[in-house]
């Protein structure tokens, strides 16, 4: 058996919760023992639109957290923005609806072996998987500080219970409607030196991830980012979700963000080449 997708399984699962949190839907799915294979950073690919749908491709969603609950067994939580046709369909599904999913997929955030200082940076609903990650990091003794940013207050996702695992949480909005007016990347350089940050974990829009990579470039900080590139399959066969990544010998590979990501080393991603014509390999 190959090592690709080795934890993944396809199953029909029941939605056991669907509630509005700000501008997002918090969707809870009963997935049984599958939760034991899910790690922060992994994603799920879900069929949308029902059997006669004209939408033929799965939609990928970051798994924000997994839990064991007394009433539903293993549950998987997703934070979904109802933007496109597929996510709108998912958000319209009532409790009790059965969906077809494949999970867990993709790489997970690497957890430090030492109890180090880490900084979590989330953009929009990209903050969702960071709370589950924060819990894991805290149990490993890491000191966890968090920055969340969005264009406006309604797009900040910061659940009360999530804040328990973080030492501090700062919120930035570009329009100043919540927290500090400005960009989430503004304080990073200062925080790296003030707190002696060893690892930055980030999840959010590609522009934010790219900006953090630029800020950490000349430092010793490891930047683990969860990338987002549109994908057709989520399991590595369609080759559409590729990103240009620099190899150790300086050559470039177009790596699939579904199986070589979504968590990638920000220092390896060639952000300037994303969406450009990559050079032909020598």
């Amino acid at each position, binding site marked *: *058996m*190959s090592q*690709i*997708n*080795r934890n*993944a399984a*396809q199953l029909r699962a029941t939605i056991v919760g669907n509630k509005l949190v700000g501008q997002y839907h918090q969707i809870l799915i009963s997935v049984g023992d599958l939760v034991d294979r899910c790690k922060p950073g992994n994603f799920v690919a879900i*069929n949308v639109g029902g059997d006669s749908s*004209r*939408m*033929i*491709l*799965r939609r990928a969603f970051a798994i924000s957290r997994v839990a064991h609950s007394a009433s539903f067994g293993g549950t998987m939580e997703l934070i979904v923005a109802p933007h496109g046709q597929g996510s709108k369909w998912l958000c319209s599904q009532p409790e009790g609806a059965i969906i*077809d999913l*494949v999970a867990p997929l993709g790489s997970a955030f690497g957890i430090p072996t030492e109890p180090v200082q880490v900084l979590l940076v989330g953009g929009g609903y990209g903050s969702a998987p960071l709370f589950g990650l924060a819990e894991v990091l805290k149990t490993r003794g890491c000191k966890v500080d968090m920055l969340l940013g969005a264009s406006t207050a309604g797009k900040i996702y910061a659940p009360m219970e999530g804040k328990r695992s973080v030492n501090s949480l700062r919120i930035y909005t570009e329009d100043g409607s919540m927290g500090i007016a400005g960009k989430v990347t503004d304080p990073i350089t200062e925080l790296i030196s003030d707190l002696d940050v060893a690892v930055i974990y980030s999840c959010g829009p590609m522009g934010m991830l790219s900006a953090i990579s630029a800020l950490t470039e000349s430092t010793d900080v490891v930047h683990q980012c969860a990338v987002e*590139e*549109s*994908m*057709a*399959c989520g*399991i*590595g*066969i*369609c*080759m*559409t*979700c*590729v*990103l*240009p990544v620099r190899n150790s010998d300086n050559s*470039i*590979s*177009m790596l699939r963000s579904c*199986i070589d990501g979504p968590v990638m080393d920000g220092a390896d991603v060639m952000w300037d080449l*994303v*969406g*450009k*014509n*990559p*050079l*032909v*390999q020598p």
Partner: protein
Amino acid sequence: MTAVDFSTTFSNAWFPTPLFTASGCASSGKELAQFFPLKDIGAVVTKSIMNKARLGRPTPRMAETPSGMLNSIGLQGPGIDTFLEKDIPWLIEQKARIIVSIAGETVEEYSTLARKLRAVAGISAIEVNISCPNVENRGLVFACDPEASRKVIDGVRRTIGGEIPIIAKLSPDVTDIVSIARGVVDAGADGLALINTVLGMVINVSTMRPHLGGKTGGLSGPAIRPIAVRAIYQVHAAMPHVPILGMGGVASGRDAFEMILAGASGVSVGTASFGNPMAIPQIQEELKALLAEKGFKQLKDAIGYAHRSDETHE
């Protein structure tokens, strides 16, 4: 009910079932192997491989469309040498039957690829992809030009000798697919793969520019299935003895059966695997049940059946 004889042949290559992956939609099989054993399906048709490593086109590389999708990959791949070193031995280990798909920029590149494949053990057939739409110059789509198509197949045939069957993959984006098919069969193709994706475009109405990095892309999925059925039907009517590997939007046993009735000896499933990694084994079971239900004792009796019923009704 006795079991249906589900086997099929392409020239001297035998397959226990007629359901194959479609090239470019299963990489070299490793990703799907987590979901089902590759030996359980007819064959793995590997992603078209070129002589040298290739990075492909910029993103965005895909756009979902009604009942379909556009892709614009541009033949990203590791190159034939790495492929032969890493992927073929692994597929043989899985006991998968292998059809290697090759693509080139020149007639010579196809011949070079054929030369490198000639001595490789464990390959059931070679698909010669002369119809990838995602190249910079439409003039390079060999399958749109009868003379260029013929030259490529002739070169591969001469290089490979008579042992391994050659399946030429054609484009539906031509006026007369039958004349292209005749040309490549005359040049030495043992079978035909019908159809490659249909050239298409999506314009992003927010940016008001073409959505795909490569501007144009290949349309696949159920949206193109009637085009594929038509192409298979026309070519089978003209050359009933040439085996056809049918593909284009097959998503159920019913769809696979339709292609077989039109004249396909085997059916490749591509885009359906994106939406459902278990699509191929599921379609295979559905097709088997359908054949039995219709009273076919062997798959071979159903191939091209739609043509036969035309005659009966005349």
